[in-house]
């Protein structure tokens, strides 16, 4: 009876409580969170590592990491911050890679005939606010702001511009009806099930949003972190592409993801 009971208990322990090899804390830029969730779920299935996601604007996460936040991986929405972390010795330089290229979209849920209209016209006609992510903190915001300046929209947006803390808040301000339009991440639109009333900006019309990931030096789980990056570089690519991102050397086409 006794040995059998112990055997049973051991069996139960293994079945009910699969031993997680390690827990990886991944700091992820807001725009990529929904995609990172999908990747994490797939990766967890394959590897039995557990992944915890922490999301905020790239600038906010960078500030946390430079103050010693206990994360293992940083999935930034730009190239600048990971490079700064390498320079200050907080990250493994050889782990740096471009995991996605962000696509900027202009979304105006209530605008009529959006395909036939110009962005400047739509903004001109709307009475409500236009939202971008804070250019100081969010790469999508910086890119949107540069687009606004380069395409001569600065006078059009006067008195209408508001800033979200990150690209997700920008999207939420429009989705909740408080802002009329804004520049958001194409991937987040797809994720939110929005299929019309947006304009995907032509890739060459704005500063590309090169999203780089890096392993932080303070990690105690270097091997597991490398496993995750390998997964993202191989099987993960299809997930990233179908979430509405481009990848280096793979030409982005909107048709592919629809």
């Amino acid at each position, binding site marked *: 009876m006794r040995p059998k009971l112990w055997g049973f208990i051991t069996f139960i322990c293994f079945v009910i409580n699969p031993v997680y090899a390690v827990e990886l804390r991944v700091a992820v830029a807001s725009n990529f969170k929904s995609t990172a969730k999908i990747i994490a779920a797939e990766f967890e299935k394959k590897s039995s590592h557990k992944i915890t996601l922490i999301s905020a604007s790239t600038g906010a996460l960078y500030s946390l990491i*430079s103050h010693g936040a206990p994360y293992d991986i940083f999935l930034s929405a730009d190239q600048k911050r990971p490079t700064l972390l390498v320079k200050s010795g907080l990250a493994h330089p050889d782990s740096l890679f471009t995991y996605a290229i962000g696509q900027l979209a202009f979304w105006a849920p209530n605008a009529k005939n959006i395909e036939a209209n110009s962005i400047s016209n739509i903004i001109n006609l709307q009475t*409500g*606010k236009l939202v971008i992510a804070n250019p*100081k*903190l969010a790469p999508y915001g910086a890119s949107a702001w540069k687009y606004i300046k380069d395409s001569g929209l600065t006078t059009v947006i006067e008195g209408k*511009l508001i800033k979200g*803390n990150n690209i997700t808040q920008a999207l939420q301000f429009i989705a909740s*009806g*408080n802002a009329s339009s804004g520049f958001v991440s194409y991937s987040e639109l797809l994720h939110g099930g929005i299929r019309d009333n947006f304009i995907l900006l032509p890739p060459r019309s704005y500063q590309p949003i090169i999203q780089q990931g890096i392993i932080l030096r303070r990690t105690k789980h270097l091997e597991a972190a490398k496993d995750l990056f390998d997964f993202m570089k191989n099987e993960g690519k299809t997930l990233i592409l179908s979430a509405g991102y481009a990848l280096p050397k793979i030409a982005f086409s909107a048709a592919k993801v629809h």
Partner: protein
Amino acid sequence: MSSDLTALFLTLKLALLTTVVLLIIGPFIAWWLAKSQSKFRPFFEALVALPLVLPPTVLGFYLLLAFSPNYLPGQLWQSIAGSSLAFSFGGLLIGSIIYSLPFVVQPLQAGFVTLGNKELEAADTLGLNRWRKIIHIIVPMTKRSFMLAAVMGFAHTLGEFGVVLMIGGNIPGETQVLAISLFEHVEALEYQQAHNIAAGLLVSSLVMLFVIYSVLQKQDHR
């Protein structure tokens, strides 16, 4: 620095207007809470105290929904005023009034509770009408409660952050208050500007509270 100066004036304007509005409506609420025997009183006391215990994000979330033209309150406002309350100074003012309400009502209520009925009855026998009673008896006798309420309401609004973060939209001169520009400086690692604001808020809040507590102590000794 000029954008921080704009934020400073905006914050002072917001705190001042909030305090003025609360000093007008607060006494009536506080008086009712202090004197009413109604069995509904505990419910309204709880309602007033809610901003003390709730995270500001709860208020921010509901205000965001209330201001949205997708819902009835926002629609009504839009049809009357022609513009939305979200991302506007008016919206922040509404948020601040709700958020700082207990900081003004509670000191006043405490003052009114201790106010003796004897003086009020004497005034009644003298035939003073309601407004004269307020001006000649109630306000002078609860002066310190009014001062405390004003300072607490003002200082608390200076430090407002969570609600503004959710409904403000970070517009310089309209909704970018000091706490928000401080947040932005910290996140952007602009520590010098962050220090200017943080130290400024710290010192001015300390001075304000110190002054009011000193005044109250002096009155105690009299």
